[in-house]
């Protein structure tokens, strides 16, 4: 007989089921948040182009491919599970044998043998089950590990443009939610489903072996179960989807409200935010209870199926015993077989749900993992080796570059730009002028719609020699990688020793605080670790740039978010970090322009001015206007214009020393 009775399975199953549902409702909030965000509260991805999802056929093919190297494991595990289940099915006939001994009024000693066999069966079943479960888990876990590695590999190599079109949440949702869901399924659902299906199948075979009419009786329950399962899935899928969205919305609101508690209080929005939370939470509660209602109706139907089948099997037993077709013991065994089916049937039906969502997650993982990795050629490109002999060749040449994020709305119109080796070019202009877009094109994040961007001396499509990076990009978007500070830095250069790390930190003026951290460079930073200030985080980004040591550096507002006081220190750090590199620096603060070798002014997607700071300041044009607005407020009243120049010169120049 199976390891527990119908009721035990039933009761726990429901508790599990119901809790499971509550889990989808409240659990792993981050995931759901991203999901709600990614797939949109209104169901569409808001004009985004989500990352690919593999078709069912493709998913199967990839899973088969992943399984292939582990074929022996798969067959071994399957065989062990079949053996375990088959042996377990001997229990009911043995019990039936005992019933027969009693019914036939034979000596009580005749019971001993079936009992000894029962013990043997128990031991063998235990052993084979251990073996089977271990093998199946090993198979699942190994394949899962390969899959997630492959997924992360592809995810990291995806062109940024592609990731951005999909929205950053899409990839994050896949890497957290989907990987976890598939992992959970492999860990719990897979072994249990395998056991359940085997138990169901082999039990039905065993009933047929007792007498084929028992099988027919048992199968009377199947139409009800099949109907119920279909009904359930039809209703559950949309319900769970809206539940996930509601949970995501609630989670996001809670996070917003809590992390913005200071703002809420400052503006006296407490009541309103509490009302919002209450409303969202009530909505989520309503959906949860609808889900619970659904599951409970599902179980109600299964109870009907159980009764139908059990009554039919008992009735069949009565008829067959009356007609002397089978013994009382056989009829008992059949009834016990059917009773023992409750647990695996319920388990399988419940797990179908998990399996379904895991399959959906799996196809989202495979959609990315199975992408051809060659799209990344542009980022893997390089200028070949650094050309030191020919210093006159421009490090960056952009010619007639045009780019549009949406068709028909170009943000760059045929832009030409060259940056000489070691030259520092500042890119200025009003919001929306296309500065960031041009910076991204130079950095190779986007491919221009028309025109070319070349890095000296080769094109960026040339294969990149190991350990060299043609162009680095540092933006105001920052991230501290979780783990020791040194590990974070080594992402830029894995073979860097302590001295190199220290030197890089020193270059950007971060060595003092880094060494003052509790464990120095071994201090765990990032998520869950020591918290760094925004300025420190940005210094870290610049230190990575120093370590990566590219001939070309693109800095996009890398100093903007630090606040006015921190900005000055960061500007000095940035200047030192790009020393000796061709640099394109996008800046609002014109101090960066004033100290650059050249200033390029953009407006409306075009370069409108190009020249040295002094020349442009003297000329009548947008830069002079910008500079007037900038320096006007900074000018010392009554002092000559030179004062401004002096102040600006206080900031170290590209090769200046502070």
């Amino acid at each position, binding site marked *: 007989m199976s390891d527990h009775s119908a009721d035990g399975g039933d009761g726990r199953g*429901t508790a599990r089921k119901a809790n499971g549902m509550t889990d989808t409702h409240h659990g792993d909030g981050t995931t759901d948040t991203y999901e709600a965000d990614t797939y949109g509260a209104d169901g569409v991805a808001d004009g985004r182009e989500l990352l690919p999802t593999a078709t069912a056929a493709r998913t199967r093919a990839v899973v088969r491919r992943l399984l292939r190297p582990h074929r022996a494991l798969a067959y071994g595990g399957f065989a062990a599970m079949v053996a375990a289940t088959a042996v377990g099915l001997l229990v009911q006939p043995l019990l039936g044998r005992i019933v027969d001994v009693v019914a036939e009024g034979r000596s009580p000693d005749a019971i001993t043998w079936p009992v000894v066999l029962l013990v043997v069966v128990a031991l063998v079943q235990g052993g084979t089950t251990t073996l089977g479960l271990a093998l199946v888990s090993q198979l699942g876990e190994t394949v899962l590990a390969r899959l997630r590695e492959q997924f992360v590999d592809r995810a990291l190599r995806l062109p940024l443009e592609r990731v951005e079109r999909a929205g950053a949440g899409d990839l994050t949702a896949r890497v957290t939610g989907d990987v976890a869901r598939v992992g959970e399924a492999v860990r719990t659902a897979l072994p249990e489903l395998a056991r359940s299906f085997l138990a169901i199948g082999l039990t039905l075979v065993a009933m047929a072996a007792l007498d084929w009419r028992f099988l027919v009786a048992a199968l009377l329950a199947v139409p009800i179960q099949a109907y119920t399962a279909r009904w359930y899935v039809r209703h559950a899928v949309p319900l769970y989807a809206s539940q996930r969205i509601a949970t995501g919305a609630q989670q996001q609101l809670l996070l917003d409200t809590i992390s913005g508690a200071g703002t*809420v209080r400052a*503006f006296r929005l407490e009541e309103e935010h*509490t009302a919002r939370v209450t409303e969202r939470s009530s909505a989520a509660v309503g959906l949860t209870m609808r889900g619970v209602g659904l599951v409970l109706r599902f179980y109600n139907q299964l109870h009907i199926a159980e009764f139908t089948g059990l009554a039919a099997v008992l009735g069949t037993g009565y008829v067959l015993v009356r007609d002397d077709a089978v013994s009382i013991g056989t009829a*008992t065994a059949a009834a016990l077989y059917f009773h023992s089916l409750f647990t695996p049937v319920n388990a399988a039906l419940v797990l179908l749900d998990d399996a379904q969502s895991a399959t959906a997650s799996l196809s989202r993982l495979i959609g990315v993992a199975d992408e051809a990795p060659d799209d990344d050629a542009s980022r893997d490109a390089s200028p070949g080796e650094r050309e030191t002999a020919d210093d006159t060749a421009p490090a960056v040449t952009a010619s007639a570059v045009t780019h549009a994020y949406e068709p028909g709305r170009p943000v760059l119109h045929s832009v030409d730009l060259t940056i000489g080796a070691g030259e520092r070019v500042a890119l200025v202009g009003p919001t929306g002028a296309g500065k960031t877009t041009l910076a991204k094109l130079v950095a190779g994040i986007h491919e221009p719609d028309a025109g070319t961007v070349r890095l000296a001396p080769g094109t960026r499509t040339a294969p990149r020699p190991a350990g060299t990076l043609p162009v680095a*990009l540092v933006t105001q978007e920052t991230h501290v990688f979780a783990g020791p500070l040194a590990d974070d830095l080594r992402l830029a250069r894995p073979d860097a020793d302590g001295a190199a790390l220290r030197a890089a930190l020193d270059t950007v003026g971060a060595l003092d605080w880094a060494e003052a951290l509790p464990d120095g460079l071994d201090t765990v930073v990032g998520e869950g670790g020591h918290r760094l200030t925004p300025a420190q985080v940005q210094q870290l980004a610049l230190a990575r740039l120093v370590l990566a040591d590219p001939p070309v550096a693109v800095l996009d507002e890398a100093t903007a978010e630090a606040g006015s*006081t921190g900005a000055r220190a960061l500007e000095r750090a940035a200047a030192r970090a790009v020393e000796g590199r061709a640099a394109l620096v996008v800046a609002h603060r014109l101090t960066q322009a004033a100290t650059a070798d050249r200033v390029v002014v953009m407006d409306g997607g075009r370069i409108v001015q190009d020249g040295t700071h002094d020349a442009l300041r003297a000329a009548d044009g947008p830069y002079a206007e910008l500079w007037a607005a900038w320096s006007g407020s900074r000018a010392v009243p009554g002092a000559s214009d030179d004062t401004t120049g002096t102040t600006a010169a206080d900031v170290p120049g590209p090769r200046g020393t502070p």
Partner: protein
Amino acid sequence: MSAERPAGQGGPATTQERPAPEAPPGAAERSAAERRSAPGTRPAVTGRDVLRAAVGEQRRGVAVGALLGSGHQVGEALVPVLIGVVIDRAVAGTDAGALARWLVVLAVVYAALALSFRFGAWSGERAAVRADHDLRVALVRRVLEPGGGAEEGRLPGALANITTEDARRVGAVNMALMLGISALTGILVCSVALLRTSVPLGLVVLLGTPVLLWLGHLLSKPLESRSEAEQERAAHASAVAADLVSGLRVLKGIGGESAALDRYRATSRDSLRATLRATRAQAFQNGMVLALTGCLIAAVALLGGRLAAEGTISLGQLVAAVGLTLFLLGPLEVLASVNAEMAQGRASANRVAEVLATPYAVRAGGATLPRPVRGAVRLRGLRHGGLDGVDLDVEPGELLGVVATDPAHAAALLRCLGRHTDPEEGDVELDGVPLRELDPGELRTAVLVAEHDADLFEGTVRGNVAGAADGTGGASCTDGASGTGGPGADGSGAGGASGRPGVEIDAAMEAAGVTQDLGALPHGERTAVTERGQSLSGGQRQRVALARALAADRPVLVVHDPTTAVDAVTEARIATGIRHVRKGRTTVLVTTSPALLAVTDRVVLLDDGGRVADTAPHADLVRRHETYRAAVLA
């Protein structure tokens, strides 16, 4: 539904009580422990209180659930008994009438067990989610209390987790209780049935099953600790992946993909090894439990078979005994899992209680503000977080600039002005009333401190700006709160439509430079703001936040570095806008931006280790003060 229940009535889990108004000034200096036990203040909330309230408020649901759940258990226990009876009376005796009779009985039992399960579980689940919901609202209420304090020392994510995960686990105690009581009933009924069949057989089963489960538990002990380690490693692998992906742009910027991948692969392999060890242990445990169960069945069959063969018990009783043995494992396992769930619930209740019982950062005094508020702010010997005896008078209606050479000084000043904290020494006064004698909520209807990194909220651009305009009472910025993200900032009109005197929202948006940006946004002022404003650029976010602060139209406005991500031309325009919109009302600009400082009436320079170093108009300070030049002009 519970959502409508006034949150005050629910015992200690709800936290409506404000600190007693009669508390003397200076009480804030008292230690947290003192405050907790002080008479007339918030009662100390313990995990036990939280748990008791969560169950107590849902006791009807739990009771109904337990009653029906017990019915279900009895029904399930009867099924194997009835199988035995049918075999005995109908099949063995080939009695068609008996077959019909007993199948009808079986049908009735099934109907009863199915229905009682359905409605019992419903009742228990509802009790669980309602308690969960109530706790969540109570927690959010506590976090948002004007007195503050709850979020200090806790990361927002951790706090949000308490409002979801821990609240849920506490709520789940209701369901666990219901299941536990039902399981106990099931065990009781089963025991009676077995003992009535045969005392020795009953004893074998009743003693054997707990021993079996105990053995299983012993076996799983090492497994549990391994499984924890495994989960940690697995979580680590997944965290590393998520971390790398969320830093993807930064990673690609420096070409760190390969290094990152190597690191991830090592973590993944490490996690796999740990997982495999744990799954092997798990498989062994499953197999052992199976074998032990089989042995128990064999023992029952041996004893029951002999008794039946001797004629002590009937054939049906033998079948029923085997069935009941298997049944008994169910409720016993439920009990074990209920136990684990209760332990989790207790731990979560403690975390919830800790938040609810957090002492307020500031306490309400008994004073009230004279209305209308003139807006005279006076700092007297203010000593806090690096500030070392600041004396300062801000005239009503003045536009004052504050330049702090140390950002920490600026932060400390802002915290004291907004009364997020009370100064260590000295006083801040508004119209002659010390802030520490005021209710922090009331204070904030008069003084708004707009932080540099203020958060935007979900809704539309206009909704964010407008919500603040009416923030003293209504719920006007609930537009978009329905969650569909659809446009619907219609609530925003309320501020103007109500005829409330003050700044029009449009004027605030114009002054903050939001209006010029609207063209670049996909839906203009109805553009949705998501994820705390991450959908907007840094500069746009800053300007919307500034517009919100201006629209709030408080008698006193303190703004911190509002234009760090704004270009020079726009910044100059914003400076003029602020001056225009705040005309006649007290405004303090804490910044080092010369464009903003240029429009102020006066600038205070904080230097010299947290003291006022100089006070003069911007132009004068630029001319005469070296430190000021260094701090402001770059």
